[in-house]
């Protein structure tokens, strides 16, 4: 701008223009946010459902699983984060499975989040890693999508294992005197996962009745 305006006028004028731009582009963002919100919420639900379907066959329950959820706060057994969700699967009113959100805080690269589906009698139906930062090509075999062994990914060895059938001390890697396999050279990720799964399963077994009985949407 030229010198014909004083400094004060220049700054006021420029600030006004800046505000106009800010308002205009904030409006663009707000409009997009509004327009995309329903689709985003639907995708988030779909994504949760897809993960749950991986650990629990969809025909094994008949309730609205996503709605039948409770939250558990400050439970160390489920990992370092405060609030965890627990979904309850029922068929004709009878409890079929618990799906627990949990995390291992001691992965090679921090936190590993996963979900585990559990029968009321303590049998593990399935485990899936939902978020992790383990080394690509080394520790990331805990995620079956990254596991080279496509026929029998590492994580599937927990399927069908029952809490009562395996001794507490044996919920560990073979290397540590337990029953579970691991890949040589990447023990830390597997050890963290095995420990965290054991803690989550123990929690699920111990609190199964309370977890199933709580009203949907409640905090436990």
């Amino acid at each position: 701008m030229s010198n014909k305006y004083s400094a004060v006028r220049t700054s006021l004028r420029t600030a006004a223009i800046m505000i106009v731009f800010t308002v205009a582009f904030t409006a663009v963002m707000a409009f997009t946010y509004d327009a995309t919100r329903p689709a985003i919420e639907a995708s988030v639900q779909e994504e949760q459902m897809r993960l749950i379907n991986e650990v629990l066959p969809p025909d094994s329950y008949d309730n609205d699983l996503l709605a039948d959820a409770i939250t558990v706060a400050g439970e160390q057994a489920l990992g370092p984060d405060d609030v965890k969700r627990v979904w309850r699967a029922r068929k004709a009113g009878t409890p079929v499975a618990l799906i627990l959100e949990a995390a291992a805080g001691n992965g090679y690269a921090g936190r590993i989040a996963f979900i585990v589906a559990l029968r009321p009698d303590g049998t593990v139906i399935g485990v899936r890693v939902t978020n992790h930062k383990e080394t690509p090509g080394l520790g990331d075999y805990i995620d079956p999508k990254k596991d080279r062994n496509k026929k029998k990914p590492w994580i599937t060895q927990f399927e069908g294992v029952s809490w009562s059938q395996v001794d507490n001390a044996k919920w560990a890697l073979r290397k540590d005197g337990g029953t579970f396999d691991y890949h040589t050279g990447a023990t830390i990720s597997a050890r963290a996962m095995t420990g965290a799964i054991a803690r989550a399963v123990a929690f699920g077994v111990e609190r199964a009745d309370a977890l199933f009985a709580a009203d949907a949407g409640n905090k436990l």
Partner: protein
Amino acid sequence: MNMQTFRESAFNGLWKQNPGLAQLLGLCPILAISTNTVNAVSLGLATILVMSLANLAVASLRNFIPYEIRIPVFILIIAALVTVVDLAFNAWLHKLYLVLGIFIPLIVTNCIVLARVEAFAAKNDALSSTIDGLLMGFGLLWVLALLGAIRELIGTGTLFSGIEMIFPDASPLVILGNDYPGFLITILPPGAFFALGCLIAMYNTINTRLAARARLKPAVTVSTDSATPEASPAAG
């Protein structure tokens, strides 16, 4: 925009001022996302989208943007557009969003977007600016794709792993066999620097050869004065 300027824009974007090899203005996403081909190409496409939109928006509004606050306004425009693209991907291309997730917001910090807005869109009309954004984006895309393919091939022996996130029926190509042990360092950040360094070295070699050939030609034909201005080798 006529054919001549289009050709110039295309040559600049795809080769001479290539954002990935010559201007080196997009290092943060280039190094972070090029661990495999699918991620690299996806981020390249998202960047093309943002660059064209940003160039279009700035070129259309350039007469209303006072010179002294142009940088804040540019950043505001770019950030708003990235937010829009981020939300749109999340809503309508959710699978791709899960792959690119944290990298889309990083486009805001990709200097190449601001650089093109400042260097080109602020001085040119909307159409040529949009085309410039597209072509610069394509320049980044092919470097990203090549880098992603090299790193993925050497690192894991496959190509297009993760393609099933985008096309559920497609499956990755296993190039080096199922028992390929992998070469971890190419997937890790240092590998990105090595691979990009090799690409830039090749790019500079080709440029030097081309320049040498351009110098030779007039000498052979003994022309009166050199017709073409010498292409300067790209600054690293």
